[in-house]
């Protein structure tokens, strides 16, 4: 471990190792304060950011924030690092890397080429010295296209997850919410249900219901029941129609253990879902959810700041070529992210994910014990639209009646389309036209009471 220091005027600040430097340089987070690793003063934070800016990127290849020997995620990051892809930025410091990212010459192709050479810690480090506008600008250049039955991540496009949750998994209630979302033009990322309980019979029943709807109306989208990966594996063994395999993941071996997953288990599920061959335009089959603070919540943070650990979760995710990676940014609660911290965290997560080559979406959300409201949602959602986010959530009326939090609504998705000219995924857009649901690429048509989709709830 190398001791580093930064001087600001007469003050000299000392940072004992890389993880301490990253933690002190990290923008204010209640979770880092809770862990006792945040900067003690505003000045110490900027001194750390200045020291970090002078750090050569190569240092991140030599010094791990969590030892290789004790952590599976570190081993994955080190073992999958692509030295050839890293070569064009190998001479840069973190500060120089920021300027390279912002340069006109660094376009989407250049970003995609270096992505396998960027480690999660490098992405986290550079984000700590970037303003929101820097991260929005760079993320907008970085495209991550993913395919299953629809194509997500193309320029000028925005997709949405239709999230028709019901507190008791009542099929008619779920179907009613699906009708609502489809009539509002949502659901091209996935129709994804969070089941009320992790019960194999129930999960299978919901998978069959979603598969039936997608087939009956020939909807170019995919389904997911967001159950534990072991339940998805059991469902697949039983012949259930699984499109995407879902799992929550984090940035350390310890937090993943607390979720009951390992890289080997994820690989098993990935192979099982891929072997079903259910995609029509692509074979990206994994759906990961993440969120800053999960490692601290599970006592598995090793003194590393929550934003760096979040980026490390993306290091695990990218080895599985996922279809969807979703930072559920405001779900964890005010002890980790409070009030306006949610806004910056959402932009950081989207930026770091895109920099690492991932098809990022963000669940722009807040809980009722956080100091946040729908105005904060609007700020982050608008920024993410500008940043080129692949997908956001569509929850009826923004009120998830099963998970008890507020996310973005179908109306919110329409707002973003209208204000930023963002069209649905191309396959889904063609379906919306065929179903006479859209009037032009950005506006809803006025639906009549005899529309075929309304029969869905009577099935």
């Amino acid at each position: 471990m190398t001791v580093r220091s930064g001087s600001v005027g007469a003050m000299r600040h000392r940072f004992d190792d890389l993880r301490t430097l990253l933690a002190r340089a990290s923008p204010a987070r209640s979770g880092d304060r809770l862990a006792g690793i945040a900067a003690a003063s505003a000045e110490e934070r900027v001194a750390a950011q200045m020291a970090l800016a002078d750090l050569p990127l190569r240092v991140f290849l030599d010094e791990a924030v969590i030892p290789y020997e004790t952590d599976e995620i570190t081993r994955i990051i080190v073992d999958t690092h692509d030295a050839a892809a890293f070569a064009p930025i190998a001479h840069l410091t973190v500060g120089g890397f920021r300027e390279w990212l912002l340069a006109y010459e660094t376009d989407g192709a250049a970003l995609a080429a270096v992505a396998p050479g960027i480690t999660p810690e490098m992405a986290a480090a550079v984000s700590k010295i970037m303003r929101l506008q820097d991260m929005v600008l760079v993320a907008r250049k970085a495209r991550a296209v993913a395919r299953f039955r629809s194509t997500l991540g193309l320029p000028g496009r925005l997709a949405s997850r239709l999230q028709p949750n019901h507190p008791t998994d009542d099929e008619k209630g779920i179907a009613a919410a699906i009708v609502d979302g489809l009539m509002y033009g949502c659901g091209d990322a996935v129709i994804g249900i969070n089941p009320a309980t992790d019960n194999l019979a129930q999960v299978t029943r919901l998978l069959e219901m979603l598969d039936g709807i997608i087939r009956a109306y020939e909807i170019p989208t995919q389904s997911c029941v967001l159950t534990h990966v072991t339940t998805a594996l059991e469902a697949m063994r039983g012949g259930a129609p699984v499109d995407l395999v879902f799992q929550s993941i984090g940035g350390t071996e310890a937090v993943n253990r607390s979720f009951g997953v390992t890289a080997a288990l994820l690989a098993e599920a990935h192979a099982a879902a891929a072997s079903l061959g259910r995609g029509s335009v692509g074979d990206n089959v994994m759906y990961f959810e993440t969120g800053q603070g999960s490692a601290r919540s599970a006592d598995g943070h090793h003194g590393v700041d929550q934003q760096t650990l979040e980026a490390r979760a993306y290091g695990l995710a990218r080895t599985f070529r996922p279809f969807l990676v979703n930072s559920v940014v405001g779900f964890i609660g005010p002890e980790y992210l409070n009030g306006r911290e949610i806004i910056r965290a959402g932009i950081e997560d989207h930026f770091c994910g895109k920099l690492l080559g991932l098809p990022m979406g963000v669940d722009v959300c807040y809980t009722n014990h956080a100091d946040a409201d729908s105005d904060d949602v609007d700020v982050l959602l608008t920024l993410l639209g500008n940043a080129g986010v692949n997908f956001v959530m569509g929850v009826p009326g923004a009120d998830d009646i099963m998970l008890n939090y507020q996310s973005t609504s179908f109306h919110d998705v329409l707002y973003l389309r209208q204000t930023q000219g963002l069209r649905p995924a191309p396959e889904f857009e063609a379906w919306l036209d065929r179903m006479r649901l859209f009037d032009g690429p950005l506006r809803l048509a006025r639906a009549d009471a005899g529309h075929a989709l309304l029969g869905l709830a009577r099935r």
Partner: protein
Amino acid sequence: MSASPAAPPSADPGPSALAPPDPWHTLGRFTPARIGLGRAGGSLPTRPALAFQLAHARARDAVQRALDTDALRRDLARLGPAVLEARSAAPDRAGFIARPDLGRALAPASAAALAAVPPPPAPFDAALVVADGLSARAAERHAAPLLAALLPRLDRAGWRLAPLVIVTQGRVAVADEIGAALGARMAVILLGERPGLSSPDSLGAYLTWAPRRGRTNAERNCISNIREPDGLGYAAAAHKLFHLMHEARRRGLSGVDLKEDAPALDPPPAARLDGAQ
């Protein structure tokens, strides 16, 4: 609605020509979700926009509310078991929200009091705990009716239960410390879940086999959204919980390796939205 000329202008203008109702709004009878809200252009009409703000205001208030431990203690004692009270290490509501670690630990005085409970000749099969969590109202409304459905089944099956413990400013993992202190083979905690806009009083049940401090979430099983009439009913929740407890005891484990696969009871019909909608 009064049609008197003296009445002030109505706050409820009814469906407007600028935001006609969605043709499928009648599907609202199948779900408490906010569907069929209509639209002005693509945006939310005024009435549902303000209804959302009202629900958020109520949910924010619900988070702050303190547990009425006297009333809860009376309700629980009526079911038969001995009832103890404890506090977490969180000093107050603000401290509880900002410091989850404190909500997971017992206050030293409570830890000492539970440690002083005379140990049984053989370990208890389970320690049942009720806590405020993030919604005191959920614990007040739903814990006693759920236990009224569960306790007779446990009794008939010969379960030996530790005294029931009420915890204030408690999070899920506080039950692990309680279960360990009472020498129970499993801990089951019923506590208020984070209030939702449409459900400020939802109860969750969490089960941990071999409880002790430091257990992770992967080592627990959960049943959520217990509340009548809109969520999982007491009989169905008790059925699931009894099945989970039975299987955890039989197999000596809990968590992701213990699947909740009780044969399903018929779920209650989804209720309609209340007037706030």
